[in-house]
């Protein structure tokens, strides 16, 4: 009786092409993700503070609100009106619970009247973890 011959396996070798493919895919991934991250953070002239802390807690659910000079609020790359703000924060609070952080990235030239509604909406939505994004200065004012 004839038995089927098991073909001799091909020699395994280190192939560069799939590795380069993976490297390119990783580069594209990081490019896209960094672009999206930049979209969340607008280019703003932030206030400075000496007592600022480093942003060490990374796994906290966070809502970042950018406030431009003219008071326009940007959330996740989209313009947010004052009327929409409480509802958006309430939804985020219900979704993520007590841990949620609201980060205000506000231009230092913007009047306080544009930040106060965000603080008020946070209190009404029972969000107590509110932080300001700042640049740290060593020399003070």
């Amino acid at each position, binding site marked *: 009786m004839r038995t089927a011959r098991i073909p001799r396996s091909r020699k395994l070798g280190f192939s560069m092409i799939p590795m380069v493919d993976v490297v390119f895919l990783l580069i594209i991934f990081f490019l896209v993700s960094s672009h999206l991250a930049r979209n969340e953070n607008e280019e703003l002239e932030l206030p400075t503070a000496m007592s600022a802390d480093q942003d060490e807690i990374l796994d906290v659910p966070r809502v970042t609100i950018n406030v431009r000079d003219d008071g326009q609020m940007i959330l996740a790359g989209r313009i947010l009106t004052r009327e929409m703000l409480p509802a958006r924060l309430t939804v985020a609070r219900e979704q993520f619970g007590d841990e949620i952080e609201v980060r205000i990235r506000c231009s230092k030239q913007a009047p306080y*009247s544009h930040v106060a509604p965000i603080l008020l909406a946070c209190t009404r939505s029972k969000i107590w973890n509110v932080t*300001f994004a700042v640049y740290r200065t060593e020399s003070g004012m």
Partner: protein
Amino acid sequence: MHRPNLFRSRDNDLDSMMTPMIDVVFLLLIFFIWTTSMAAIEYILPSQVSAQLGNQPANINDPPPEMDFQDVVVKIAWDGSDASWFINNVRFGSIDQVDEQLQSIAQVKLDAPVIVHPEKIVPVGLVIEVFDVAKLAGFSQVSFAVEHEPRE
């Protein structure tokens, strides 16, 4: 006539293609790492929100009242170019004076709640400056005052 052997030279061609590709990949990596490190690092300033109701403007003409250490209310006024600071309705001309005053209050009662209460038109940079000064003075309860608006 001598014909080049395609099968024999294939590996060499592959090697010669791979080298510039890997060079480009490494250059891209170095470029992105470098540009990332050039971005300014942001820090965070944890804040508290106060359910503050007071919104009366500070009156400069009134005689300075005695300090009440229950709450330290720091009001900030802005005339479009210059700021004035009021700690419990006592006027201060510069942020350095505010700093000194807050430090002296902190020596008496460090656990006093400090409420930063700016006018609506005050730039946020100045508000954060006062908040920062209060934090540096050692106060643990520093919060922002917000005016209640009627609900729709």
